[in-house]
């Protein structure tokens, strides 16, 4: 899936949370999305996989 498409969806989600008065979820969401991104990148680089297991 394209990074552009995912960014647009993530932006929509942020707007929705703010509109619904749930802005306090934004930091949590930021951490989750960052984690997902890190995992996505590390998943692509198989040689670092053993280190990922120690982190998560």
């Amino acid at each position, binding site marked *: 899936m394209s990074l552009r498409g*995912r960014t647009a969806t993530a932006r929509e*989600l942020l707007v929705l949370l703010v509109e619904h008065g*749930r802005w306090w979820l934004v930091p949590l969401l930021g951490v989750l999305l960052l984690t997902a991104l890190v995992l996505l990148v590390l998943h692509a680089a198989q040689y670092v996989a053993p280190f990922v297991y120690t982190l998560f």
Partner: protein
Amino acid sequence: MKILGLSAFAHDSAAALVVDGRVVAAIEEERLSRTKHDGGLPHNAVRACLEAGGVAMADLDLVVMHEKPLDKFERLLVSQLRSFPRSGRQFVRAMGTWLSDRLWQREAVVRALGCRTSRVVFAEHHLSHAASAYFASPFQEAAVVTVDGVGEWATTALYHGRGGELVPLAELHFPHSIGLVYSALTAFLGFEVNDGEYKVMGLAAYGQPRFLDALRGVCRVSPDGALNVDPRCFAWAHDADSSYTPALERLLGPARRPGAPLVLPAAPGSDSARWADIAASAQALLEGYLLTLIGEAHRRTGARALALAGGVALNAVANRKLLEQGPFEALYVQPAAGDAGGALGAALWAAHALGGEAHAEARGEARATAGRRGPGLETPFLGRACAPADVRRFLDDVALPYSCPEALHATVAERLARGQVGGWVRGRAEWGPRALGARSILADPRGDHVKDHLNRKVKLREPFRPFAPAVLEDEAARWFVPVAGKQDLTTPLMCSVAPATLEARERLPAVVHVDGTARVQHVAAHSDLGRLLSEFRERTGVGVLLNTSFNLAGEPMVGSVAEACSTFLRSELDFLVVEDCVVERRAS
């Protein structure tokens, strides 16, 4: 305007094609993928719908998803945080699924279907259900009630359908959900959630609702239809593995583990008797709640008709009570009332609310066009058909013996009257979980042994489950008691039960449940199944056939000639009809 509705990324995925307000095709993915309750993106159903409508992917004006994933994700975050740290394990699992897959539905649809991003819009889950009920019904004005497990936040919703417009009136939000209570009790009784709810409904007839007061104590209902579920007994908000807690077992006794023997009728004081009583109590709780809810819907709308959808609307026993005891004069239930039906509703909603608007800018915003509505659901036969030439070619290829009698209906009626049981695959497949005479197993309902034979040897399922009758309209009242003075639009779709008359109880034991009711289907004499029923009546004096879905336990209903033949050969059916061919077993 060509609109494709999709239900996906949960359970019971489906696609529906609506062209200029008319439903052209609607197909559940499980019928094509052969995975029961398939929850993936419905690639096969999409292809089949477009083929049926002669529409290319590029011609689609809109692709409408049946729910809003971002709102659902928001609910997940909020509800999991509320019950943290108990929800810790579920949170990790849920985030894994959502962040890797379910959050990015728009991109997944765009990639899979090759459509433009701007053509993909999202309708709310309960709005999709409501649209599937209202726009499929023949009513100009109706109270529309949707009840299921949970959508984004809503678990239950009331709408007022009027002049082609759906006005939202009230919603009940997660975690308070009568659908989830019924599902939790389904799991408590050892059945699979999202599949075994029918079994609870069937089992309820064997019990007494002696746990009703206990359940009412933990599921409190307000006069306005609000529900408050006690989180000490129900765990769906924070537990990924169990939907109930040990507190519920203290209230009702030990839960039944899946596969534990269920002996019915049960000996007094036995575990089986207690489980049947719990099922009866769950059913009574549900019916009581729904009656309160539709009372509120009637008070708010003043409408004379009620349209229902959502998985709970598949509870045929409750539907009868709603029409019989509720304030409405007419009742319609959309035949695919569960989540599959959301695909139809999403497409119908877009057809009515977005209409000819510039959809690229619409992006899911409703623009109601009052005073206009389509023709409704003109037929439930919206699936794929088997081309007769393909059928013969297939049967020749696999060397199964067959004949193509000119008087097909008379030939089949003769065999059924002799006590044989046959598969019946004719025309386009049904939309929804009920077999209505396109993908059916048919049998003579008069024999005592028929029900047991079908459950044990043909369908390979629990012996306590009842079978349904298909009856000619003109003699329905002879066998099954209608709701006096009310318009019951559920009967052609097999969506409600009716008490059997004394004559039916004596002469049609195979289709009368232990509580003296039957989930009846009224059939018009001019229809294909009606012709068969008429021939059967000429031979037996009875215009009724046992009609059950053509599948084995745990499998979806058959679709193609190959699936029909496979199921035929793995069961103890006596013969199989596919289009105009009567297939026999090989002599060996």
